[in-house]
């Protein structure tokens, strides 16, 4: 039969090791937010690169038909608009340092999440339709000199790729992004709520 004193001495004899320093802890917390910013920036960079490549194609390739130019212009406009929307979205989370202004950062994070959802749900279909239209015009001349087998192959691959992006890849991306942001928002909400309750 043990007494409470024995329990207390047992507790105090159990030495625990804190495995993290204050610097590590703070940088780790900052990293979570930075990775969302970096992903968003990569996304914009990829779109900007596509934009530059298609503009170069329009300017430096000798196309004869107006349909090709129309197709490329439609694609360029769609990519440009999407890039601008993504950049506008990126600016929402770029401005705040969450460690300095947690509440402001939290509300911006929520707006960012909502925008992301709108972009990949409603706006995505406008983007996909515009791209499809652009490709139809573009292929009209470009595929003309190829054999029917190649024509069918390229068209089938394009349709397959766009369908894949619109369904499985889009849904997977949305789900992953939502989970990441939910986790981050939940964490900041816990922090804010606690201080509202107890301060």
């Amino acid at each position: 039969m043990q007494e409470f004193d024995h329990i207390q001495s047992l507790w105090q004899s159990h030495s625990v090791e804190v495995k993290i320093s204050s610097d590590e802890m703070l940088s780790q917390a900052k990293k979570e937010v930075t990775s969302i910013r970096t992903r968003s920036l990569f996304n914009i960079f990829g779109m900007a690169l596509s934009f530059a490549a298609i503009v170069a194609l329009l300017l430096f390739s000798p196309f004869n038909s107006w349909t090709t130019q129309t197709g490329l212009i439609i694609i360029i406009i769609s990519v440009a608009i999407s890039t601008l929307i993504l950049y506008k979205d990126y600016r929402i989370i770029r401005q705040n340092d969450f460690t300095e202004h947690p509440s402001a950062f939290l509300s911006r994070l929520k707006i960012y999440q909502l925008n992301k959802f709108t972009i990949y749900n409603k706006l995505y279909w406008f983007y996909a339709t515009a791209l499809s239209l652009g490709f139809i015009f573009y292929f009209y001349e470009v595929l003309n000199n190829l054999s029917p087998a190649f024509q069918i192959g390229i068209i089938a691959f394009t349709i397959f790729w766009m369908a894949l992006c619109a369904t499985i890849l889009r849904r997977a991306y949305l789900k992953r992004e939502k989970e990441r942001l939910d986790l981050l928002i939940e964490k900041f909400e816990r922090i804010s709520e606690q201080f509202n309750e107890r301060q």
Partner: protein
Amino acid sequence: MEQKDQLFKQIFDTNSKKIFHLCYGYTGDEDSANDLLQETFLKVWQNLDKFRNKSLISTWIYRIAVNTCLTYLRSEKRQAKDELTDNIIENRPEEFSEKNEQIALLYKSISKLEENDRLIITMVLDELPYNEIAEISGISEGNLRVKIHRIKLKLTELYNQHARI
């Protein structure tokens, strides 16, 4: 900013071990305790400017840690604590000894207490003054004394029960 960083480091070095022990006692799991420690000190860092010296800084940090522990388990829906505390022995076979077994039993017994009682008793075990525990837990000192007496009895009973098995 440099001054704030320095102050934070000093606060972390002084309090982190005790806070980690509190979280460890509450969860019975090193990884969860580490998560809780990080979350606690992140809050400390973010709210350091709001601290107005109305209480001791350690009391303030304990209060944050207690709240963090209570919200953490509810939101994370962690696995049953007895499963976690079993890991204390299983994960460290090289350190197996009678003392380690007793320590594991202690954590297991603590895990059987109510959530609030678990936190109160870990502060008692760490010899925090009763007035500080009262402030941290938001209970009057008179009620706290009665409560602590009851928790001590319960914990001793649980520990002896487990020791007999």
